[in-house]
């Protein structure tokens, strides 16, 4: 059990100040209770004050290259778990991811080090070629990824993301139930925030800028 250091308090104070400046509301949760994970919950983004380092995992991307922890290092990564036979949540989330990428990267001050991944939890139907066509349609810079169920569970388990195949194997068009959140990994390969729909792009953009500053303070290059 760690005691909040002076540095930590300084960062926290900065987060509060910057969030206030960004026009958002922010609440501290369980701050006095060290036995609980400290969260800064928000309607838009839930930020973990102690980001969770991810362990090794290996999946395969749409170009048949390995997608592992190394791929997440050095960049901010937004991950979304879904499947291509999903008519409602996935197309609207991918359309939103594309808008988010535009917002985050536009202009001279735009982020250069962000990446977006659509991870299919339906490897039976979603081959690399299908994923490439699907993500390419929404935004060619979103990369499709999948793997075996075991490989997928290794990553989803670390993030608390859930998925489950509809138990109707005879049906030609089975559903896949999945978490509809976005997961944000920082350039140190740590799970730092989750985002819940409906995704408010401009607020996410403001929060993200704050988060980047906080991260730069807590993990100097």
């Amino acid at each position, binding site marked *: 059990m760690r005691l909040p250091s002076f540095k930590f308090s300084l960062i926290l104070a900065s987060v509060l100040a910057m969030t206030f400046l960004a026009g958002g509301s922010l609440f501290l949760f369980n701050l006095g209770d060290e036995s609980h994970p400290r969260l800064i919950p928000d309607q838009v983004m839930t930020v973990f004050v102690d980001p969770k380092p991810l362990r090794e995992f290996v999946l395969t991307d749409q170009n048949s290259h390995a997608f592992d922890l190394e791929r997440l290092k050095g960049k901010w990564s937004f991950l979304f778990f879904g499947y291509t036979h999903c008519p*409602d949540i996935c197309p609207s989330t991918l359309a939103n991811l594309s808008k988010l990428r535009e917002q985050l990267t536009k202009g001279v001050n735009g982020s250069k080090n962000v990446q977006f991944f659509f991870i299919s939890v339906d490897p039976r139907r979603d081959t690399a070629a299908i994923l490439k066509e699907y993500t390419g349609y929404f935004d060619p810079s979103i990369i499709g990824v999948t793997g075996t169920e075991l490989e997928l569970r290794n990553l989803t388990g670390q993030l608390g993301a859930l998925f489950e195949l509809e138990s109707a194997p005879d049906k030609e*068009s089975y*559903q896949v139930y999945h978490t509809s959140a976005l997961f944000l990994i920082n350039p140190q390969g740590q799970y730092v925030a989750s985002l819940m*729909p409906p995704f408010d792009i401009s607020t996410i953009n403001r929060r993200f800028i704050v988060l980047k500053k906080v991260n730069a303070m807590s993990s100097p290059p």
Partner: protein
Amino acid sequence: MKLSLSIILGLILSFSSAQMRASDSIINASHAWVQEGPPSAEVLAGYMDLQNQSSQAQTLLGARSTDFKSVMLHQTVNKGGMAHMNHTPRIEIKPGSTLQLTSGGYHLMLMSPKKALRQGDQVEVLLEFQGGLVLPVKLKVSKERP
């Protein structure tokens, strides 16, 4: 014989057009659209606003379309932290209220389009209500809600 046939035909036609007009004045459909998907997409979602303009509750029972292999009324719900799509057998619209078919909520699940649909295309769906009311709705294929 010819005369009676044309009378019957005329009656049928006037009845069906009257029913069409009636369904229009009972339920008003607006912002009807289909989210464009990748060319190979096998399932798409249809969204719209349905305003019940009558003084009685109207119950949506289902939908059909010749532009798709099948159409189902669905609702996206959050169960145990996961998005599920539930088949919805009926949705009641109270008098004067509007039912929104929208992303993350109720929507039409449009299975296997007969042809690849691109932005600007239009499809027609027939909405079936309790009491035999059928409302034809034209949906625009689009990337965004119109």
